[in-house]
């Protein structure tokens, strides 16, 4: 009897994440996918056809036949969308690389710090989350704007004669994204580096490896899971980022988030907006799935 209960319990434990995925990913995905196959209309909601099961099965199948992939053809035919995806992926990739460049030494230093100091350092990384994300981005406006803190400081030092124009440029977007997502890079890196057995480094050095060689041949390969996790956590949200480019960037930056906003709010075209969102999901999810599969295979091979 008890064994049966245990079996059910273990099954239930597996069901929970699947249920989570179903309710919070698959169902919304299908709704958005369905809207992306519809057409705009001046009505509530602003697209057609809408499914009404109360009108019977025949009406349902008929509205099903009205759906079409025309909106996706629309996306293909205007270079605007392709360019927006490209810009977004490019900005996200550069930001992820910069975050890794800054985050890795931070995580490494934290992992090598004395045990007593680590909780404090961890706390410092998490601390910014205690203030609203939006307020921190606004604070960057105050720092970077022409008569902001940074320019005043540089002028006072005499390094520059005229204020630098930073807000409204790509540089400001990179600063904003790298700053905002840095903790997501540092935390998984720290988690892997902290578990690393540093006696391996000593062994390598005993065997005549230079410190740099030991770092490249041992530390980096062992921290790959952390690097991958950190890069994913920064890259994925950065592609769809809307707030940071809107507040810090210039009008000329065309990211996919803004394009989506335009379709949804300015054109009131929920179907095309949905199609943009679905394509964005495919652009992100498919490569990531392939990557993870390759990773899993590689890990199995190593065993």
């Amino acid at each position, binding site marked *: 009897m008890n064994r049966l209960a245990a079996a059910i319990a273990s099954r239930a434990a597996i069901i929970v994440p699947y249920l989570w995925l179903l309710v919070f990913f698959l169902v919304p995905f299908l709704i958005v996918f369905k809207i992306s196959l519809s057409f705009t209309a*001046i009505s509530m*909601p602003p697209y057609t056809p809408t499914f009404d099961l109360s009108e019977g099965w025949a009406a349902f199948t008929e509205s099903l036949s009205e759906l079409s992939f025309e909106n996706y053809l629309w996306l293909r035919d205007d270079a605007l969308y392709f360019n927006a995806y490209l810009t977004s992926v490019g900005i996200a990739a550069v930001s992820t690389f910069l975050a890794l460049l800054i985050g890795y030494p931070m995580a490494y230093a934290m992992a090598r710090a004395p045990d007593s100091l680590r909780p404090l350092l961890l706390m410092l990384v998490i601390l910014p989350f205690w203030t609203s994300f939006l307020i921190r981005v606004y604070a960057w406006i105050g720092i970077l704007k022409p008569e902001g803190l940074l320019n005043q400081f540089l002028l006072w030092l005499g390094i520059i004669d005229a204020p630098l124009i930073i807000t*409204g440029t790509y540089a400001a977007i990179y600063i904003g994204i790298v700053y905002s997502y840095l903790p997501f890079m540092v935390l998984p890196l720290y988690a892997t580096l902290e578990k690393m057995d540093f006696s391996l480094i000593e062994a390598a050095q005993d065997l005549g490896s230079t410190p740099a060689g030991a770092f490249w041949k041992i530390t980096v390969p062992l921290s790959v899971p952390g690097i991958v996790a950190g890069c994913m956590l920064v890259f994925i949200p950065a592609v769809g980022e809307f707030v940071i480019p809107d507040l810090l960037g210039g009008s000329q930056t065309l990211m996919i988030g803004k394009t989506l906003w335009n379709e949804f709010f300015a*054109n*009131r075209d929920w179907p095309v907006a949905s199609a943009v969102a679905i394509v964005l999901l495919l652009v992100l999810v498919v490569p990531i799935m392939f990557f993870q599969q390759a990773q899993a295979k590689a890990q199995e091979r190593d065993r």
Partner: protein
Amino acid sequence: MKSCNTLLAAATSVLALVLAGGAAAQDRVVNVYNWSDYIDDSSIAEFTEKTGIRVVYDVFDSNEILETRLLAGGSGYDVVVPTGLFLSRQIEAGVFQELDKSKLPNLENMWDFVEEQTEKYDPGNAYSINYMWGTVGIGYNPAMVEERLGTSEITSWDIAFDPENLAKLADCGVYFLDSPTDILPTVLLWLGKDPNSTEQADLEAAEEVMLSVRPHIRRFHSSEYINALANGDICFAVGWSGDVFQAADRAAEADNNVEVAYSVPEEGAQLWFDQMAIPADAQNVEEAHEFLNFIMEPEVIARATNYVYFANGNKAAEEFIEPEILEDTAIYPDDETLEKMFTVMPYEPRFQRLVTRSWTRIVTGQ
């Protein structure tokens, strides 16, 4: 287990008490969704005091956000305040219910000039009453502009749409609203064309004008210019009247030696109207009507105008409006200027798409 049951029983009885109490008090509520910073708070308290109706007051800061919530349905609001251009499309979509004018005796206070204008969006003013109205004009910093143009007064759209003029202001900062429906009609007016034209050739001509001044525009944004003008970060913005007055007000409060002026250029300007309406699925229709009627009390709406520096559509309210506001022709334009004002109507979805695409080319260069 027993203690658990007792707790449950206690909780149930408390819940029952709360429910009973709520029903006994006959809590009358009206859920209002208005623009942020758009009313004098004392008016809301006064309404509750007079009628016993509790006001749940919620705010938004863009028509798009409001529209999305309305179109999705079940917004839960009883009174909302869209701008005319949006209102007319929403009426067509079936978002609103017709007003019961027998419950709105204060309609007699309204201003016929404004009613004539709003009728273009809402035929017969069947669905809405006017709350505030204003213009799309030029906000600027007179001192910085004088330094560069030799005059501290801007009276023409030539400054905004002639690249030679705007180039002189580029270094002190130029902002435009990030909204094609608020800029392109004015460009058409300046070109001597019909602001409401839906000819593709006219749209292309307007785009050409905007592309020619684009290099001198630092940013397209629909709210940032308020603070930017107030701080002296920029010297020129094409924006909404009330926002510019708000910037002037903030600059005066900060006492930072920044002055902000507003101009309605002599060629004319686009009018906009914020209208109060009741969603079709509103839960508290009776209370919503009482609220609308209260808003049309001359003293109440005058107090709102004295607070936000926007003109309202209530003729009877004029005697309660502070003279400095009523006499300011930038807020209450004289009859001659009013003649030159124009309104814009919503585009067909197909033309709207062309307009948005053209705007994206102007703003991003793609």
